[in-house]
């Protein structure tokens, strides 16, 4: 098992936010966490990367990555892990970039933090990654500021950065919800290519059940901090008897489906 989350509780201060959450993820698998806003999806994947904000803390259970308990890691060990073995894509990759720095300078700094290479080598690696993400003219993108790129391009830059060291586990927090439908389709396709090419395991947090169903092998439905329903895609879509899951599925608009007028 690549990642094992065993029965964890997560609290912010005194407030218990996620309760009894367990998940096992093998290599090359894609798992989705779906649910409404505030159901604790993001909290779970942030806990995996040790990025809980403020007073957030795992108060019960354990998270094992390749058999090692992540919760015992020292800050230095975390730093080693983040961005190389596990990386993350955020909802708006533009917001995580420093607006006063060009993409290239951030990218080179990131690569040189984790790998002992010269600036020129790091630059070339960056360009190569950007072009692999279907960004035309990577050199040009490296010389741009985040605000000069469109939302879809910024998201691709975020994915390119996250994939530079071919992580074993990719965590994606609503990677497409700020994008147009056409760009969303391109990004989804690219993320699936990553799995096929590199065997990367992916946990994707989304409220778009259509995207979740298309991408994942396994789905977890969350409600108010707890697992409401889980199973393989076929189970969740066709066999589940859970009312909440069925309600969520019914809410996805589909062509040729329910009409209100």
């Amino acid at each position, binding site marked *: 098992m690549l990642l094992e989350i065993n029965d964890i509780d997560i609290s912010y201060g005194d407030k218990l936010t996620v309760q009894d959450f367990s998940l096992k993820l093998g290599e090359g698998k894609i798992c989705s966490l779906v649910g409404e806003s505030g159901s604790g999806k993001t909290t779970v994947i942030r806990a995996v990367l040790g990025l809980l904000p403020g007073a957030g803390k795992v108060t019960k259970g354990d998270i094992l990555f390749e058999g090692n308990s992540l919760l015992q890691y020292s800050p230095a060990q975390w730093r080693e892990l983040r961005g190389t073995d596990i990386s993350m894509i955020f909802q708006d990759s533009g917001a995580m970039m420093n607006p006063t720095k060009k993409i290239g300078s951030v990218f080179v700094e990131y690569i040189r933090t984790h790998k002992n290479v010269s600036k020129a080598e790091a630059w070339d690696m960056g360009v190569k990654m950007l072009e692999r993400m279907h960004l*035309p003219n990577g050199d040009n993108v490296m010389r741009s500021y985040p605000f000069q790129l469109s939302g*879809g391009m910024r998201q691709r830059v975020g994915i390119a950065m996250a994939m530079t060291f071919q992580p074993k586990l990719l965590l994606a927090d609503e990677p497409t919800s700020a994008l147009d439908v056409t760009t969303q389709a391109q990004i989804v396709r690219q993320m699936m290519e990553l799995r096929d090419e590199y065997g990367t395991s992916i946990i994707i947090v989304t409220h778009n059940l259509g995207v979740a169903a298309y991408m994942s092998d396994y789905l977890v439905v969350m409600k108010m901090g707890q697992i409401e329903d889980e199973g393989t895609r076929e189970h969740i879509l066709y066999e589940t008897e859970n009312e909440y899951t069925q309600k969520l599925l019914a809410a*996805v608009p589909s062509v040729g489906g329910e009409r209100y007028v």
Partner: protein
Amino acid sequence: MFDEKDLVLEAKHVTRKFTVSGGRTLTACNDVSLNLYRGKTLGLVGESGCGKSTFMRLVVSLDTPTEGEILFNGTDITKLKGEQLRQHRQHIQMVFQDPTGSMNPKMKVRDIICEPLLNFGRISKSEKDAKARELLEMVELPGEFADRFPHNMSGGQRQRVAIARALALEPEIIIMDEATSALDVSVQKTVIELIAKLQKEHNIAIGFICHDLGLIQSFGHEIAVMYLGNIVEMFPAVDIEQCKHPYTHALMGAIFDTKMDFSKKIESIEGEPPSPLDVPPGCPFQNRCDKCMDICKQEKPTMVQVGPDHTVACHLFSGEVGA
């Protein structure tokens, strides 16, 4: 498809150009002609930057077109000024994408939804409480919400308040700019159901901006697809499966649906639309179209009728004129 007597708003050949640095012009809307009918929803679909919001801003008189006219019950609203324009604003209201950003965080819900009524002297201050309650109940929220502040409510509840505010003046037209895209799917469904119900009760014309064809076909009557400032296809929402334009097909192909065939590869067009600053001559969609022909690079296609109430601007169908 629609009864001509229900026509409330007619946009005729509307063009909006912006002057940008370097003496260049950006054409956000190019010769757009659309109609809104009482009790019907027009869905305007397209990617970011295609000009759909610019067009709707013209309809709400937040901006004036460079060319063309917009007729509301026969009067050209682009020529209105001063008090006349202020009075006219009662008839066309708007709901924005982000309900948090469109409400004053220091005002209570009661004041937010009654402000338009007070502005036009429709109610006196003493009637505010009762009216707020009535409007909240109309959007299926408890009347006690009148005492809340926007931050005490969830996104879906805030969007309901925004709808109540838009309905307060009993407008003939409501423009909704991606009104549900900030909401969860389950909340989106209930808000859409509410909009459809209120439309029937009040016989309102709705202009709904959206980039999800799957959503708009579920409650729209007519769909207009826009690309780089041009309308490329218009069809009745029930006929969505008969859409013809390659761009509409691409949008259809990008819909993720829980009932889809998962072994099928997602077919979506690559890349992004070119900058509206240098639109190529000929068809605006040429560089992303897999059916692009020589003529597409030289001549811009015009709208031709390909079925009842179904028009498309594409050279593939230019031969079918006269349907």
